[in-house]
């Protein structure tokens, strides 16, 4: 286990330059937007020049770029992610309000993806070349090729308009006490069963839509990995040593995990970016909706904040994935 700790430290250090890179990129990208945000904030074409000047000064936009960058880095690390000119609130406060909605949506679709996709893959592997295997292949194909927004609309039409079973938009009702900002989780924590069911109904359609796009890929990867591992020489040798049942499955499962973790990590990325589209279709007040509004109003600090947040999340996912690899596979720990 000693080498695992050393590996984690090394990996953490190697992520620092990446984080810095994300920061610089966020900064640069937001400054090459071909529009004058100050004028927009000040009220458009009719804005008075003094006000424009005033805003320019207040946001240090009159300073040279490198000075702005240093100010920016300094602020980010001291927890000041700027104030959104649109909401007139600190960006971090906005993020704290909107992000739990996205997190909740991503977690539920991630769970759906895992608990449906992995067994689907295993069944396809067990029943290789059977009807079920082909059916799963078709589901996979539809999932990957259908655009998320189209799927969203179809599902809304079936379950809301036609069957009237599920709500089509919004998050439901916030529980009386806010623990995490995730409605479903918070309603469990407050012990409110009715609210839990209501909020679960709300999250079902958007999370199913999100999960569906990745389901096929997971199932296919699990299937092919399991088939590879089961036909590998070391599983054969394990059988030749008289291993069976759990002792044998342990080898199969552990060896199948690595590719599965890789796709799961990729899928989480897809889910996050997919969330932006899905949140718009389902009026889900998450970070995606927030970002879309920020972009429409050239809300610099908000755009930078969201970009930075998503960048950091991706780095974090990569980090966790790397550590998971190292825990599973001793060859990675070098």
């Amino acid at each position: 286990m000693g080498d695992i700790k050393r590996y984690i430290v090394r990996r953490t250090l190697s992520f620092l330059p990446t984080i810095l890179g994300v920061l610089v990129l966020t900064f640069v990208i937001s400054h090459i937007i071909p529009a004058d945000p100050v004028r927009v904030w000040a009220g458009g074409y009719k804005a008075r020049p003094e006000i424009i000047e005033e805003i320019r000064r207040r946001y240090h936009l009159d300073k040279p770029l490198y000075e702005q960058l240093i100010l920016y880095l300094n602020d980010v690390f001291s927890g000041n992610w700027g104030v959104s000119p649109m909401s007139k609130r600190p960006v971090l406060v906005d993020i704290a309000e909107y992000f739990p909605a996205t997190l909740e949506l991503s977690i539920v679709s991630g769970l759906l993806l895992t608990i449906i996709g992995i067994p689907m893959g295993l069944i396809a592997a067990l029943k290789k070349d059977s009807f079920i295997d082909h059916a799963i292949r078709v589901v996979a194909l539809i999932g990957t090729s259908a655009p998320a927004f189209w799927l969203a609309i179809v599902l809304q039409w079936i379950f809301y308009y036609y069957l009237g079973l599920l709500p089509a938009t919004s998050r439901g009702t916030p529980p009386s006490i806010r623990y995490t900002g995730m409605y479903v989780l918070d309603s469990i924590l407050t012990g409110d069963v009715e609210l839990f069911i209501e909020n679960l109904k709300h999250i079902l359609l958007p999370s199913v839509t999100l999960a569906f796009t990745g389901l096929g890929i997971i199932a296919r990867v699990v299937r092919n990995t399991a088939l590879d591992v089961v036909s590998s020489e070391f599983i054969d040798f394990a059988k030749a040593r008289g291993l069976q049942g759990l002792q044998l499955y342990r080898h199969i499962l552990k060896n199948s995990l690595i590719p599965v973790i890789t796709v799961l990590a990729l899928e989480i990325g897809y889910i996050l970016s997919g969330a932006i589209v899905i949140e718009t279709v389902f009026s889900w007040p998450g970070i995606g909706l927030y970002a879309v509004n920020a972009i429409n109003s050239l809300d610099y600090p908000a755009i930078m904040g969201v970009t930075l947040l998503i960048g950091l999340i991706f780095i974090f996912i990569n980090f966790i994935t790397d550590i998971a690899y190292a825990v599973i596979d001793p060859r990675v720990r070098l």
Partner: protein
Amino acid sequence: MKKILEVKDLRVHFYTYNGTVKAVDGVSFEVYEGEVLCIVGETGCGKSVTARAITKMIRSPGKIVGGRVLFNGIDILELDEDQLSSIRGKTITYVYQDPSAALDPLYTAGYHVAETVTAHSVGMRIREALRRAVEIFHEILIPDPENRVKSYPHELSGGMKQRVVIATAVANYPKLIIADEPTTALDVTIQAQILDLLKELKGRYGSSVVMITHNLGVVAEMCDRVIVMYAGKIVEKAHTERLFENPLHPYTKGLLNAVPNPYRKTMRLESIPGVVPDMINVPEGCRFRPRCPFATNACLIEPELIEAEKDHYVSCWLTSKVGQQ
């Protein structure tokens, strides 16, 4: 000597898209207590399939279509998966050809041995079994056994990995060790060490060994008796010395002419012309006929395996005629 294993008329077919591969086609032999029996033959002649069929380790599209494998009076081929698992790795164990592929990269060397022990000892904990692994590593001369059990396969050399594989094979005091080309994947210098180790262990554990090889040097070095296989059949069976001194089948002669013979001086090494037939369309009659320099019309009928001299069997019309006259 006591027979511990008797293979009778074993037949294994592979049902492929191109047709039925008769990989093993009526093979019979026996293994005596404490002996080393070698199976030799060119690539593809069915050695591995024979070895695997002994504990029913044949996977689809392969199928054991006939024969019996008698071990202590019971037919292994009649057993269910549970009973087979209790024999595999305990009374009959395997050493595979490529140790890098045979070991699970995600588990330590010691774990492989330990789980093989726990699989066959009810109630034994893996921790306890790991201590047994250290003992075995010590016995098979793996240096620094306490630390080596904690090594992962990728941290070990090829020779060391094969020692670990051998450790799993001897961990439960087997009656029979089946070694399928145990040195082919290793450096020449390591090969001799591994062979010595196997010889040593067989003496210490009192196991019999079935050794598969296409290296006649290994045969001369290790084996008490030899079976020569060609295209899914046994063509000759004899004590090692007899086979080297007096090979009867033209195929065996060809094999011996292709390598320096430790029992006879040969001037020139020659290869056998032609290749092993594809096993879907095997030649009618004697399967070696198309490559045989002595082939006659008689060879269109398949010869039986007959005892040409004491304990020396051959399936060839040349010898049969001599025997009949």
